[in-house]
């Protein structure tokens, strides 16, 4: 199935663009998707510092925030759009 990942902030530099269209197997989770994205050492450090998912990331799936601590094992669905922000601050 096809999903879209949109990058923001410094992640655009790291992933060389604003977005990526990916084809993944049915049953792929958000955590596994992040694993596919971590295909280079610098990307792995950003997404999985200390081997665990970076808890500062803000992931919005189809307009709804994903709990980075508790919902990483939810299954992706066809046409999902995931927006990934390195951090949320300000206001």
């Amino acid at each position: 199935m096809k999903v879209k990942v949109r990058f923001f902030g410094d992640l655009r530099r790291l992933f060389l663009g604003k977005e990526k269209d990916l084809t993944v197997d049915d049953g792929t989770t958000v955590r596994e998707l992040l694993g596919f994205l971590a295909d280079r050492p610098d990307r792995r450090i950003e997404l999985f510092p200390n081997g665990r998912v970076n808890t500062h990331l803000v992931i919005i799936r189809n307009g709804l925030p994903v709990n980075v601590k508790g919902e990483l094992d939810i299954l992706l669905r066809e046409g999902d759009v995931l927006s990934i922000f390195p951090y949320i601050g300000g206001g």
Partner: protein
Amino acid sequence: MKGVFGKILNINCSDKHCSEEPVPTSVYEKFLGGKGLASYLLVNKNPVGVDPLSPANKLILATGPANGFKIWGANRYAAFTKSPLTGIYSEAYSGGKAFLHITKTGYDAFVLDGVFDEWTYIEVDNNSVSFKNANFLVGKDSLDTEKILKEKYKEQKAGILTIGPAGENLVKFAYINNDFGRCLGRTGIGAVMGSKKIKAMVFIGDQEKQAADSEVLKAFWKKQYEVGIANPGSKAYKKLGTSMMVDIISTVEAFPSRYWHQGTVPHIDKINADALNKECEVKSGACTYCFIACNRWTTVKSGRHKGMKLDGPEYETIGAFGGLNMVKDIREIAYLNDVCDRLGMDTITAGNVTAFAIEAYKKGKTDYAIDYGDVDRIAELLRMIAYREGFGNLLAEGVRFAAKELGFEEMSIQVKGLEPPSFDPRYLKGMGLGFAVSDRGACHLRTTFYKPELAGLIDPDKIEGKAAMLLEYEDRLTIYDSLILCRFFRDLYFWEELNRIVKGTFGYDLSERDFKSISRNIALTIREFNLREGMKPEEDFLPGHFFKHPVGKNQRVLKEEEFARLVRDYYELRGYSSAVEDNERNE
């Protein structure tokens, strides 16, 4: 006493008499300082039911126990009064460098009372206060006023606070400027300063507070730098500033646009952090004792404002003008930011007011022709507001008043008279609860609850347990405001770190429970103030618009019963009595 000076200075502008007043230790134990001390002073010193723009309304300036020590993020001062915009409790905080000069005069707070015969600026040099004629500054904008005084005081190190024309003309959302664009922004504190005919204040000092344990503070300084600099937040703030929020809030369609009718704008790529960094030369800048450096020192690189320099624009200003007013170019938003700064008014309320005026015109409620995105017309309206000319005179009273006068109350988007910042409560329901129950009206900063809702810590739609989590944020941030720490250290300073700060300054060893009890003392004191000044508990709610009109692709809207549940939960946890009980008590 350790950690504080233990005294305040009363300044009477009418008879130019000043008096030092000791503050009992028990007050610091119950309220810490900063917001806590000032709230205690306001409740006890302000006459009940006072007209906010009358001489008898007190204007209180305060620094906190953390200020004056080398503590990262302890770099703000604050003002407290009864707001002319809302008629209730008013507080505002500002960063930069001024706080240190204010602190070093040797007082924990200044209570300004009365009114001068003619425009005056006050010079506080340690324990000596002088009143200087300010006729040469009248009519000057807030930044030029600071520039002139800065030149005058170049030999000394001085912290300078100024108002612009909006403050002079008692615009109800006038602000107080320091350090060329940092400001005590919300609730019209600049109008209270103007009502006392104080054009500026200059603070010079070399008093040092005594720390209870300077070794604790030294170790804290070193450790927090190491921890803080490695935090991804520090990198993001430095590179993008608060404008990083534009894309996040727009992605979830909670970016209030077209005067609260839409959740995003088609021109988002023209007004986000990338646009700011592309169209302008942006240097990051830091307040004293800060490594985060979120300030934007911006120079516009091209177009009709080429060469214009300003501090900003921050997220809220981009939201107010780029969202609510549909301005499609970050350079034009920067321009409107500069117009507001110079006139000396809060960009959040100003942007809400001009967008309200646009909506009112479109619905045939006024004959002042203006459209969304019409930058020059918006700028003209801002000037008319600051000088109270024509239609501007009405808008200078804020949205609540203007909506009533124009018979357009269905679009009176405000809580207790304060216009909301750029977070749509139809999506961010906890942020909505924050707007509804915050002590100064629709405020995002008392809880900053957009953060847990967007970071996935609690679903924005969830009702169950939300008030409890909001209270956690409110309690911790109330301690921030009482020590006077910057919000942006909220990912770094939790109860344990706050314990270190209090241990090093005051010497008290406070647990999470102790801190929460202090926050509760402060909340109940402010509640008492607001109820006594005529606030009705049923005002702890949001405008009807958010319950009637869905927003965004997902058509999000608030449900009355759900939102009432949030408020009820909050009341119970906070220790407020219910609206019904309060009404019975008042009758």
